[in-house]
């Protein structure tokens, strides 16, 4: 319809500032599917790119299951809410895969306001030999049709198509920060700053509000929801984290509205570390259940913490990601870096955890050996099939040859999003607009 097209053009030219043309390529989310065969990325421009792992072949053993582009589609477009005079960014905040139940793949992708269910399917056959239309699709002149034939399916070049199957809109006043698929595979939740809604995949015009922390008077607002996730096995249980550094575990069987938590996880503040910015750095940016469902991991600005679901008063493990930044908080507040939201991930066996940092560094912590390593995702330092060299930040005193000093760190190169293959040692690391995939070396 012409009117719609005109509106879209107006939206795009009105809203898109050409000076940030490349900003659209910045990757904003990375997620493996449940088998690890597919890897999806979302970017600031609203696009989703899906990579598929090659089948391993005996002919080329060194190309051990590399990932190639499988499908690219525009998931979300920028929108303008004329009533509220608000622009809605097309940036993909999160992607979550559904487990595969047939030949097609399904994923949820969300921007600030709208969640969409996408179906990604392959087409490698095409029907040919219609009676009433020719190969171009044009209708044939009926008087020219002299015989009856049945269309047959003929092979064609593989085509991967993505179609939006459901659009879940108009349920969030605030910005959506998380989506999580329930283990019942029938429902999922979406969380914004103040509310969490429960959806059924089949129903798009209604959602069930299960958490609402909006105060009657907004001036009394003291905390917001920062992340939420369903338990991997118990479909009645979920957790959500807050800007005050707390985690609440809720049981949907207890009541329809889960404003009252079942468990409340909070660590007492260390008074010697207090500063103007204590509250900001305690805000949790990500929360993830372990695959086992026994633990949750949280990320705040300087640390990653592992909590046992059975112990609410403190985490069982705390890992320092970049404690050398603690003395720089004022400058990081000034340049807005202190608001960066880092994510964290478990490996398949829950023995190693990984999170990102600045200067394109990312960190891994082995929970059993207590060893940790800092690695870098950069073109200069990683040629294909080269082994990553551990990196070290020099915090004071004499700087050794390979070390980098804190003041030389590039804070514009931040790794916020990483993903770990569900069963193998393959990781995906998003560094601004580049995606790095690293695999364990096999001799």
């Amino acid at each position: 319809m012409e009117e719609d097209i005109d509106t879209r053009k107006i939206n795009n030219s009105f809203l898109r500032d050409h000076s940030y043309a490349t900003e659209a390529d910045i990757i904003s989310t990375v997620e493996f599917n449940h088998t690890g065969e597919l890897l999806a990325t979302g970017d600031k421009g609203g696009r989703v790119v899906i990579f598929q792992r090659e089948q391993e072949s005996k002919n080329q053993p060194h190309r051990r299951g590399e990932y190639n582009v499988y499908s690219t589609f525009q998931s979300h477009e920028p929108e303008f809410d004329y009533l509220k005079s608000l622009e809605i960014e097309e940036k993909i905040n999160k992607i979550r895969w559904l487990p595969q139940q047939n030949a097609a793949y399904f994923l949820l992708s969300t921007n600030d306001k709208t969640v969409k269910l996408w179906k990604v399917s392959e087409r490698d056959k095409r029907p040919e030999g219609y009676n009433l239309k020719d190969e171009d699709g044009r209708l044939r002149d009926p008087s020219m049709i002299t015989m009856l034939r049945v269309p047959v399916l003929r092979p064609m070049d593989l085509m991967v198509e993505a179609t939006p199957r459901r659009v879940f809109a108009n349920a969030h006043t605030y910005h959506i920060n998380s989506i999580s698929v329930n283990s019942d595979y029938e429902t999922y939740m979406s969380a914004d700053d103040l509310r969490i809604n429960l959806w059924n995949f089949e129903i798009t015009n209604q959602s069930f509000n299960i958490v609402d922390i909006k105060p009657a008077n907004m001036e009394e607002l003291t905390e917001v929801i920062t992340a939420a996730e369903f338990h991997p096995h118990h479909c009645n249980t979920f957790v959500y984290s807050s800007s005050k550094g707390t985690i609440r575990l809720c049981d949907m069987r207890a009541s329809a509205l889960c404003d009252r938590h079942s468990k409340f996880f909070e660590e007492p503040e260390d008074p010697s570390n207090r500063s103007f910015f204590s509250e900001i750095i305690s805000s949790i940016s990500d929360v993830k259940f372990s695959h086992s469902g026994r633990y949750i991991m949280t990320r705040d600005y300087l640390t990653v913490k592992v909590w046992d679901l059975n112990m609410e008063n403190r985490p069982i493990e705390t890992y320092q990601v970049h404690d050398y930044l603690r003395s720089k908080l004022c400058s990081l507040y000034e340049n807005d870096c202190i608001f960066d939201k880092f994510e964290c991930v478990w490996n398949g066996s829950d023995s190693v955890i990984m999170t990102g940092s600045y200067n394109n560094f990312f960190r891994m912590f082995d929970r059993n050996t207590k060893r940790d390593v800092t690695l870098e995702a950069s073109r200069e330092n990683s040629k294909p099939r080269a082994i990553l060299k551990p990196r070290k930040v020099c915090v004071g005193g004499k700087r050794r040859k390979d070390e980098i000093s804190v003041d030389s760190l590039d804070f514009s190169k931040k790794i916020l999003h990483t993903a770990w293959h569900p069963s193998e040692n393959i990781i995906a690391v998003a560094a601004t607009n580049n995606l790095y995939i690293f695999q364990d070396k096999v001799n």
Partner: protein
Amino acid sequence: FSRRRERAARGLGAGGAMEFRLEAHRIVSISLGKIYSARGQRGGLKLHKNLLVSLVLRSARRVYLGEPGGECALPPRPGPPPPPDCERLRRGCRPLASEAAARGRPECPAESPRKRSAAERDPAAGYPGKKPRRETEQPPPQEDMETGNVASLISIFGSGFSGLLGKERGAAEATEPGQVCCEQPVLRSLNPWSTAIVAF
């Protein structure tokens, strides 16, 4: 990075109290700038970020104005052990009795203002005026984010800021010319903002 500024933010360094106040003033200016520029941001006002900025603003303002309880934002200084009744400070450093302020010593410095009692942990208890919700309600699509209340957040500090501008001149005279980092020009450059603040 300015080491001196960073140490001041942590409460260390020579001339501690004055550095605190200068640093606090600087943080107030930076925070106001962030709130102001957030209004034109693509995608609408980010509630989370602005909440955090307003919390920093609140702490810095308390320190700058030398309000009792402002010291709660800073690491505790060594001193006599805290008195047994620290109840007042539990709710995030509400102003103490003026007598304690005159002494210039923080009460209960070791008491974490964020630690809550069991009763407080119930989030519903924190919102006395909470409206009852219908169970299957879908939030109305026309609901206002109420982010216009950013302006009223500033009005909370408003009464302090016309005083702030007055104090700043006093502070500038008291210290050496080279040391002043509370720049009047900075506030003036946030033009519509400073007008609004003075009007409050």
